[in-house]
């Protein structure tokens, strides 16, 4: 630092001043550094182990509710976008003002957004949110959701027996199914007149660069594994998963797969960037209604995946009772039938089929809403993963998405 000082008297003086202040500045910096290190250690020390506690319920005085959900997942007024008839009826009936928001595009991205607040027991904005089985399982095991007061949800007795005791929530004390569905394949009927039968048909050279797949690992890899002859609900080993990843990576690397997305894949279908896709059953009915009858859905011959999305009440929500009132409402068979008639997903409510006969008898036989034993036999639930598997498989899947 023994440089010659510049000639300019003003600058010269400034530099001299700065040099004099140097010592004290360094001391201050050191002090700040030590303080920062102490702060960091303090921040790191506790945490992870302790589970957050539920927020105090203010539903009695605050008649509002924020419901976060996936796209194309609630009956919408065809003439008035953003108006939801069943929800309007609920608001009139109960006086609870509901903000319905399409916030969830993908389980992982949604979880990534809110997990920090959940871990601290803070309000994430949403008072109830519908997420997929495996994610709900994670939320429950981490203590990130509130326990229902089942006396406030009497209609939960209508829950179909098959879904009453899943391994992640025996007796359904913290989650209740919203809708279920299949992942399968769909195609643009105008551009692909021949249609598709299996996942292997998606890899046809004529569709190069026009295929979309879901960023939901269990659906995309699940379908590929089924195509490879693996029963995804059985206790398969890591080699079976990696075989499917290899096939997936091959199709991404050679440009057959154009994009890998969450619910936003519907935009690509509409803009015709993709002509065929791995997709969710009900969505196709919805975009057919929105953008002209152009797409068709099928469960691949080798089998499709079956999943459920469930209502949960995040740990920081102050409107638990309001959320329970809402869940109770959607478990009325007539309401459930109205929603199912629009979203075309499997409703978990017993009695909805009878109610559907009054709304639209043709839909009571729709395999996407009321699947028969035969249809269900051709679909499987992706088995529950151990935490170590979830990290390993998740990383392998994300690595393909990043092109490595």
């Amino acid at each position, binding site marked *: 630092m023994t440089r010659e000082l510049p000639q300019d008297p003003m600058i010269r003086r400034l530099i001299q001043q700065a040099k004099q202040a140097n010592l004290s500045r360094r001391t201050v910096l050191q002090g700040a550094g030590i303080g920062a290190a102490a702060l960091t250690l303090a921040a790191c020390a506790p945490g*992870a182990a302790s589970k957050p506690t539920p927020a105090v319920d203010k539903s009695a005085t605050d008649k509002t509710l924020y419901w976060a959900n996936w796209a194309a997942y609630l009956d919408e007024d065809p003439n008035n976008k953003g108006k939801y008839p069943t929800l309007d009826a609920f608001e009139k009936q109960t006086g609870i003002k509901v903000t319905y928001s399409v916030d969830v595009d993908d389980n992982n991205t949604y979880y990534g957004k809110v997990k920090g607040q959940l871990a601290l027991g803070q309000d994430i904005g949403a008072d109830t949110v519908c997420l997929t089985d495996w994610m709900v399982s994670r939320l429950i095991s981490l203590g990130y959701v509130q326990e229902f007061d089942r006396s406030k949800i009497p209609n939960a007795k209508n829950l179909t027996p098959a879904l009453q005791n899943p391994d992640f929530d025996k007796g359904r004390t913290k989650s209740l199914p919203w809708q279920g569905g299949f992942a399968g394949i769909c195609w643009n009927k105008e551009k692909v007149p021949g249609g598709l039968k299996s996942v292997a048909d998606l890899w046809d050279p004529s569709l190069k660069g026009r295929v979309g797949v879901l960023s939901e690992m269990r659906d995309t890899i699940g379908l590929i594994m089924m195509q490879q002859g693996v029963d995804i609900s059985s206790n398969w080993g890591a080699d079976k998963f990696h075989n499917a990843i290899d096939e997936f990576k091959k199709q991404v690397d050679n440009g057959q797969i154009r994009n890998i997305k969450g619910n936003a894949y519907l935009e690509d279908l509409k803009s015709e960037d993709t002509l065929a896709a791995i997709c969710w059953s009900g969505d196709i009915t919805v975009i057919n209604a929105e953008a002209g009858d152009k797409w068709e859905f099928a469960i691949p011959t080798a089998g499709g995946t079956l999943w459920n999305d469930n209502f949960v009440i995040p740990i920081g929500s102050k409107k638990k009772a309001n959320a329970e009132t809402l869940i109770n409402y959607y478990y009325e068979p007539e309401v459930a039938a109205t929603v199912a008639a629009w979203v075309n997903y499997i409703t978990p409510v017993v009695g909805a089929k009878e109610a559907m006969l009054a709304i639209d008898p043709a839909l009571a036989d729709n395999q996407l809403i009321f699947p028969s034993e035969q249809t269900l036999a051709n679909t499987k639930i992706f088995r529950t993963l151990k935490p170590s598997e979830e990290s390993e498989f998740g990383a392998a899947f994300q690595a393909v998405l990043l092109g490595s």
Partner: protein
Amino acid sequence: MAFAAFATETAKEQTPRRGGKIALLLLVPGLLYLGLFFLVPLFSLVFTSLQAPSGVNFGQFEAAFKIENYAVFGQYSEQILRSFLYAVLATVFALLFSYPLAYFIGVKARPWPLLQNLMLVLVIAPFFISFLLRTIAWKSMLSDESPFVTGLKAISLLAPDAHITGTPFAVVFGLTYNFIPFMTLPLYASLERLDTRYLEAGSDLYAKPFTTFRTVTIPLSMPGIVSGVLLTFIPAAGDYVNASREFLGGTGTAMIGNVIESNFLLSNNYPAAAALSIILMLAILVIVLVYVRVSGTKDLL
């Protein structure tokens, strides 16, 4: 060098004040800010990068000294190199586009202050709209069925099955577009002070216009070039919006920012993400130091 412009003016005598305490007091907010928002996160990042999985639940980690976490560098070296390549390309293109623009606004348009201000507003105006929205807009303008792409295909400038979105071209284009104002403004600031009498002197001494430009204009605007390059290159190397699959990128264009985002938000592999962030910071630091040394403008820092 920048002081040369003031050489003719006499430096005003200022009464120096010996206010050590006041100076320190004035430094406190800045130091607190630096401590809270730079040092603490930095320490926390270093700690996170050394954590090991606790094994009980998915996405939970405990304090450890697992230096092996830094081995992710090998797994994602391709994305790291790609980030710097894209960032360098974007910086070069931004400089090529911005220099004439800044020169026009700062030098040629001097007789018309109104035009000068209007053009400056046009440079800054995109900032009034969200960065994300502008990128989304480009995505739809460059999508397969857009008039631009179908037009290019109609005149056979683009193969019938080619795409623009999801290609390196789209990503570099997006980076260049989004960071051009960061290049233009510092260039304008230094060119605006360019004393045109030096240029006249150059031509009086029989220098060709290009020689004058090379030996007079460029050296005088060097501070602007250096700060513009730094302001463009650093954020561009870490950018994760343009290269994201939701925006202009595809699976083959992931940059280091996308890898970090994916590890943080999707895989919940915080140690790997933190290690990559630190690697990125160090790499940028080294590149910037080398650059500053080579361009010989140490005084700027």
